[in-house]
């Protein structure tokens, strides 16, 4: 269905021909020696998590010649974000906007893109299709592979064979992370299970702490999470002596001894590539995805507790993943209700679009999707 443009450094600089070849026409922007780029965050810029990862990416643009960065934090997913985008365009002259929260995409960013056809909009996590405005687009990273690596290390380090996952909501991006984490651990020991607790909110400190405690009470001894700000989960788990794997950003300063590794975004790399292309007046791609191979995501350095066998398997798998097209979800695979979700012999490589509509938890995950 959608023409997809997989994106690495080399391909990105050849986008004009590439997009034409694929039949995806990005709206061309005028050649400009200077550009104002706007970033919009749903939470505070320093949250040790989702928003911080984007803000660090934005910060990497501030030193580039000709680039002016404007930012706004804590913008709710209401008419507020629409008005913020318009304000950045009308009052600041922004030519390229990155509204970074998922909820901004539909309807707000799509509306703004329709209203301002000369401005470029790129959204984190959305599923841009060719029915959407051509001056809009989406980008995302295959962070599931990083959660798989988290799972490998966790699989080596767990003694109870029980892992814990604090998750916000049962949406595809989160489910893929949970499944990847467990499958990584099961690559070490197929008897490992992972308990998941959904908090229902992207950022709610006390409930995240309670969820972490509940997981530890059930015997989990390695914990990771997918919430906007992993700070509380990392501190609570480490405080009770459990190991933690990070998410979004590097949380090792919060628990230097207990932090094993973490799945991190590498938005600086992505934003710099966008900015260079934009400054050069070239066409930005509409649909952009990348993984470890393209430098969209990265792993935190391994912590001091990580054992030698864990390190070896981690590094071997990482090297394999850096070649690209790694498949975590492959058949035969059952969900945790016993139904077969992937037939034997079938494999979804990281770029498979089907993964972006995942609606199941795999066998071994304790929890429900609704």
């Amino acid at each position, binding site marked *: 269905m959608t023409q997809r443009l997989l994106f690495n450094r080399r391909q990105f600089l050849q986008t004009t021909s590439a997009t034409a070849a694929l039949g995806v026409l990005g709206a061309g922007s005028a050649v400009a020696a200077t550009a104002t780029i706007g970033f919009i965050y749903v*939470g*505070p810029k*320093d*949250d*040790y998590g989702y928003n911080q990862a984007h803000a660090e990416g934005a910060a990497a643009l501030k030193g580039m010649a000709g680039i002016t960065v404007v930012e706004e934090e*804590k913008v709710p997913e209401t008419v507020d974000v629409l008005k913020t985008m318009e304000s950045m365009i009308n009052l600041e002259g922004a030519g390229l906007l990155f509204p970074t929260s998922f909820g901004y995409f539909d309807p707000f960013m799509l509306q703004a893109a329709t209203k301002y056809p000369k401005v470029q909009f790129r959204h984190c996590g959305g599923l841009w299709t060719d029915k959407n405005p051509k001056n809009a687009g989406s980008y995302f990273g295959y962070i599931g592979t990083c959660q798989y690596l988290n799972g490998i290390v966790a699989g080596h380090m767990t*003694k*109870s064979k*029980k892992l814990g996952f604090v998750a916000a909501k049962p949406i595809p991006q989160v489910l893929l992370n949970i499944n990847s984490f467990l499958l990584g651990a099961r690559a070490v020991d197929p008897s490992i299970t992972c*308990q*998941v*607790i*959904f*908090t*229902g909110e992207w*950022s*709610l*400190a*006390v*409930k*995240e*702490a*309670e*969820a972490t*405690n*509940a*997981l*530890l*009470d*059930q*015997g989990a*001894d390695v914990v990771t999470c997918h919430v906007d*700000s992993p*700070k*509380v989960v990392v*501190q*609570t788990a480490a*405080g*009770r*002596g*459990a190991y933690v794997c990070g998410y979004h950003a590097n949380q090792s*300063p*919060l628990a230097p001894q207990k932090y094993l590794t973490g799945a991190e975004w590498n938005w600086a790399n992505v934003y710099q590539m966008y900015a260079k292309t934009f400054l050069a007046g070239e066409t930005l791609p509409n649909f952009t995805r990348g993984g470890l191979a393209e430098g969209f995501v990265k792993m935190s350095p391994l912590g001091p507790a990580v054992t030698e066998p864990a390190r070896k398997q981690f590094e071997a798998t990482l090297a394999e993943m850096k070649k690209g097209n790694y498949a975590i979800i492959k058949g035969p695979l059952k969900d945790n209700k016993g139904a077969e979700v992937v037939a034997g012999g079938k494999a979804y490589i990281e770029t498979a679009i089907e993964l972006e509509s995942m609606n199941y938890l795999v066998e071994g995950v*304790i*929890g*429900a999707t*609704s």
Partner: protein
Amino acid sequence: MATTDIGLWGVPLAILGGAIRVSTPFIFVSLGETITERSGRINLGLEGILVFGAMTAYAVAVMTASPWLGLLAAAGAGACFGLFHGWICKFPRVNDIAIGIALMLFGTGLAFFFGKSFIQPLAPHLPALPFGFWSDVPQVRAALDVNVLFLIGAFLAAALWWAFRNTRIGLIIRVVGDSADAARAMGVNPDRVRLLATAAGSALAAIGGGYLSLYYPGSWNESISSGQGLMAVALVIFSRWNPLGCFAAAILFGGAGALGPALQSVGVSHGYYLFYAAPYVLTLAIMIATSSPGRTLAGAPGELSITK
């Protein structure tokens, strides 16, 4: 970390542990508000003061490496907010509820404004007492790690309950709360009593905030409070202005709040949003069951604008 499989026992244990961990801010804020409301004022701004207290405690703890100094600073800052509320509300026609709501905004705003640079640094935590030392089940030990502030809160509840009945200060506060005219006849200045009662209440609320940032969950960020300050004010009405009732309500609320995650951890995961609403449903149900149309709220201070 050694673990023991405790299965379904995890649920009652989580409720117990949750009651102890989560309830402390509710205890402090509701006790503080009890003092204020008993004097005839309502301070809805405790949510803002709690958040500011959380930030102050964390910031000072980071700078001085002492969580106790952090708590002290929070209490001081809270008292300043209380003095401000108490002073401004003594003027005729100034609405204490409205000023409280404005303070909620102001306190939160100031806390976020000055708190930006303290999100990253790490502060030392308040110590916990290992009441679970007798058990060799790690989960039990974890649940019975009781923070000193919880014990202080329990003691304070009992002390306040006693003091309202048996001490002169308690009597003065109650008289002022029931009838300013009667207080004046006794030669007591109601405005001054209310000023001090609001300051004391706000100092306690700020300590409750310090608990959030320095013990559980134990970090400073902008989503540290999920409305504990506002909810605790409601719990005061729920517990009929009785300090012991506040303590019980806080425990109930904390325990019910632990239910949602605990049930998910043993596999009951459908409709988790509804489990998360348990504390609110439970509180509302008890309110409805224990109220009756015949009598007004027993124990309500007569001068309180919210119950008139």
